[in-house]
């Protein structure tokens, strides 16, 4: 069964802005799915409709086969939502916020308290559980919203930019937590601007632009579309002249750094052989840019220079 099925979903706002133009999308149960798109592409509108915060103009969204439009209560019981913006009462304590959310989903108070403790501990917030939530840092607030979304143990967890503005250490701990949730059986849909996040975590991806899905495939298949990869080579010694290798474009970033753009059809061995013959010693190598990022920019037509 699909965790999410979206059919011909359209949304036209009152100011005549067309946010979604007949979107079709399927997310399989158990998937870890990335929804990518530039700002204003329609990601948040799509999530808003699925979580019933936005009324669709036409079309239908189904969560585990249950129509959001026709059986809202049953559909909502399946979903946990981590929104982009902080939307809890900052005058309440984190523990109360999580316990109350469980109550809205019909979780008895005793169980809600146990679960709140469990998730707040899991997300390293237990020591802040009974203090004012407005004093939490930005990263803590995001983790609190994840705990809140998980307290009724939803079958589908939707995270809208969960790691935006979060430092790398916290981001990695959040990735670990979300991956564990997914491994335990919860379907996860993630929107993110960190394409590295999507590449590392997600199995499938959809790219939305101008209110329509322009790509919907596996992350692996998407990366397979990359024809040329650019590597940055750090050299032990500065060089004067550029080495020449057939079929590989090499440019000098500075005296001891090269950029080599290599088509998929070519082997890296040949590059290293030529460099060795010319006495150029490479001490480290990395991808110039995130691979998914390159594809994303190409698909949504963003000019790299302009970006």
């Amino acid at each position, binding site marked *: 069964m699909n965790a999410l099925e979206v059919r011909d979903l359209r949304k036209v706002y009152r100011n005549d802005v067309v946010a979604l133009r007949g979107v079709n999308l399927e997310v399989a149960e158990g998937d870890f799915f990335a929804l990518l798109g530039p700002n204003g592409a329609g990601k948040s509108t799509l999530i808003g409709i699925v979580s019933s915060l936005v009324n669709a103009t036409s079309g239908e969204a189904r969560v585990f086969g249950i129509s959001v439009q026709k059986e809202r209560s049953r559909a909502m*019981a399946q979903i946990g939502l981590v929104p982009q913006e902080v939307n*809890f009462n900052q005058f309440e304590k984190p523990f109360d916020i999580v316990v109350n*959310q469980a109550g809205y989903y019909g979780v008895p*108070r005793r169980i809600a308290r146990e679960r709140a403790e469990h998730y707040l501990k899991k997300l390293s917030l237990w020591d802040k559980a009974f203090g004012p939530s407005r004093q939490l840092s930005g990263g803590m607030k995001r983790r609190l919203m994840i705990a809140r979304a998980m307290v009724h143990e939803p*079958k589908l967890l939707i995270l809208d930019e969960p790691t935006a503005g979060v430092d790398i250490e916290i981001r990695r701990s959040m990735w670990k937590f979300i991956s564990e949730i997914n491994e335990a059986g919860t379907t996860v849909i993630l929107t993110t601007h960190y394409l590295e996040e999507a590449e590392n975590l997600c199995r499938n991806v959809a790219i939305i632009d101008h209110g329509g899905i322009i790509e919907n495939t596996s992350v692996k298949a998407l990366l397979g579309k990359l024809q040329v990869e650019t590597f940055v080579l750090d050299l032990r010694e500065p060089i004067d002249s550029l080495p020449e290798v057939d079929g590989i474009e090499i440019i000098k970033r500075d005296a001891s750094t090269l950029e080599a753009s290599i088509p998929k059809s070519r082997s890296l061995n040949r590059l290293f052989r030529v460099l060795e013959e010319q006495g150029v010693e490479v001490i480290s190598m990395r991808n110039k840019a995130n691979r998914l990022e390159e594809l994303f920019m190409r698909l949504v037509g963003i000019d790299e220079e302009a970006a």
Partner: protein
Amino acid sequence: MSVDVSAHSYWIGYKTILIKEVTRILRIWPQTLIPPVITMTLYFVIFGSIIGRRVGEMGGIDYMEFIVPGLIMLSVITNSYGNITSSFFGAKFGKHIEELLISPLPPWIILAGYVSGALFRALSVGFLVWLVAGFFSGFFMHNALVTISILVMTAVVFALGGFINAIYAQKFDDIAIIPTFVLQPMTYLGGVFFSVGLLPGLWEQVALGNPILYMVNALRYGMLGITDVSLGLAYFMIVLFGTLLGGIALFLLKRGTGLRT
């Protein structure tokens, strides 16, 4: 995994909203419970004790006793309305209303939870004002059933009105306009401080078009056994307004007016 949607889960949801509301009211008690008590004490001192002595009797009752039901009703109305507007609009303004909007709870449970919270505050303040009134004029009760039912029903009517106000409100000014320019004049002209029979002919007829007059008089009957209007008509007016406002509030909540885009 996942939760069931049943009457029991709705009951838990309702209790959660109510507990949250009661906790909020008690957490900020210096803002919610104390100011109305101080204001009403001043009314009792100035209008009841100082001016009331010169007024003597109103409708055959000592003036101090006469104003007690009206002042209790004034407290109940303003606190019921004020609680739901500030709480629901605050949740909307702070976006934490989304916690409820994405939950499986149907609109009528959300409405019932907020109205019950307003009822708690209105009756708490009403009780405190009654205690203060007892200090000035002694405790009296003609018919407890009428007194309690009128207070509860009136608080529900104004909570529903406040809920509709909060749904449409875009800024904090929008929740202050109706209490200041509509509710307060209607309450003061609804016979809190005087018997409607004192008004000259035409103005008496105008006053009879004011629904608050029926509520104040019904409570006055419950506490003192006197009223300017028919008790049956008072109950009818309250039920009519309650049904009308409840229907509108539910319709707006279901449609997502001011809440869902």
